[in-house]
């Protein structure tokens, strides 16, 4: 591959992808650094690490996106809250927070009442921070979230390929 010349004018982290990759690798390294033994094959260990990696992926994605988006803000807030509450338990569902679902804002409800649960409800559960959004913003956030998730998956897959070979 051709060696590239990096002028100082090229900004380092201009894309969400690169920012996410940097942040995620950094977090991965930090997680791997905490491995006590090289052959820690215990499932519990792996499970714990897996959770940490997952959170790291979400958080690094959210920080790469910034605070512009409601879902990234929600993820970062969740992380801050978890860090404040408990140092060890990193992953915690926001079930203790009352969800103010604005039912009257759930527009097009008649078209979404399928399979018992409202589709907008399902979407709200899936998209972080979606509980308090009206339908219009929810759809916009979903679009951006899907984009970022795809980027995330691609980057992680590439990293996994690199690391596993």
């Amino acid at each position, binding site marked *: 591959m051709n060696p590239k010349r990096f002028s100082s004018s090229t900004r380092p982290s201009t894309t969400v992808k690169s920012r996410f990759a940097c942040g995620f690798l950094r977090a991965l390294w930090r997680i791997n650094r905490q491995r006590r033994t090289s052959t820690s094959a215990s499932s519990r260990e792996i499970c714990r690490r897996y959770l940490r990696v997952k959170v790291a992926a979400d958080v690094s994605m959210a920080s790469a996106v910034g605070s512009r988006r409601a879902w990234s803000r929600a993820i970062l807030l969740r992380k801050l809250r978890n860090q404040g509450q408990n140092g060890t338990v990193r992953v915690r569902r926001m079930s203790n927070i009352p969800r103010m679902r604005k039912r009257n804002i759930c527009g097009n409800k008649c078209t979404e009442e399928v399979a018992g649960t409202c589709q907008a409800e399902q979407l709200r559960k899936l998209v972080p921070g979606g509980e308090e959004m009206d339908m219009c913003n929810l759809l916009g956030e*979903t679009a951006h979230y*899907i984009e970022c998730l795809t980027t995330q998956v691609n980057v992680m897959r590439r990293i996994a390929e690199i690391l596993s070979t």
Partner: protein
Amino acid sequence: MEPNLGTIARSISIRPNREETGLESLQFREEFHRLMIVPPENGSSFTALLELPETQAMELLHSPHSDKGVMVPFSGDPLHGINDDNKSYLPSFNGNLTFPSNKVLIERAAKFSVFASGEHSPETSSVPSDSSANLEKVKSEPAETDSNPNSSQLLVSDPTVNIKNQRPEKRKEREKKGKGCTKKTKIEISQDAEKLPYVHVRARRGQATDSHSLAERARREKINARMKLLQELVPGCSKISSTALVLDEIINHVQSLQRQVELLSMRLASVNPRVDFNLDSLFAPESGSLADGNFPSMVSPLLWPEIPFNGNRQQHQQQWNFDALHRPLWGREEDNHTFITMENSLLSYDSANSASLHSNQLKMEL
């Protein structure tokens, strides 16, 4: 029929004098009699235009104000496209070509009387200038007539209003054709335009125009635009037309992406480094003593990002040391080809931002 009517109307419109209205009306009545005796064969006949049973028409005619008699072409002009609309819905609510109800007729008659009584003087003054004015009005309101059937769709439930709506239209159309009009009709047009109770809003066909529905419509359009965006994002959604199915697809896609992230993070967590890596051990032996392979090759990509994030840009020296560190590793064929490419980029780096280096190398990879 029409030519007769036209001639009558023209003759009347030409007449400037109000004093001769009595004579006119008489003439009118005679003509109308004649016309109305003939049964309507098609919509173009005057009686069909009138859509009155004879008795009712005669009532109108015999009312004290003569000019009333003319009006009312409820059905459309044959020459105007709106004709069909009118005929289509007029029969729909009355079933025949007769006037829908006496009550409506009387209402209108009352209206005319109001005009006629109050407007004698304006009538006289307006008569001479009216012909041109009306023609102008006609020209200025062809769009109105076009939009009227659209808005009239809304008013189907209110036949009175509809009919009032139609009447001035037809008046104008007939004028347009040059058939002229009676003084009364001219006045009627002007009066009716002022007295019409509804606001002329250019609503789209079949859509309401109050503020709530406008806001609702704007909101719906926003949501539809976002849905279209989402459809493009999610593969395979562009063919689906129903919103419920599209939402299902979107939900499935988001769920699958999240599951993929979880799988990959599990994979990353379970990846065993071949050798344990230790930053201290990496940095300490800067000499070539690391060629023994104890150094985890997989550490290299992990470690590189660390350099930029030291936050200290003066650590380029350290970075170069790092390069020197890894150089012996590259000779080994078991190194990942990708590592070599990344290293190449690192090597060529003479002076630059370390973060930019890293990101660029990642870009090459990714």
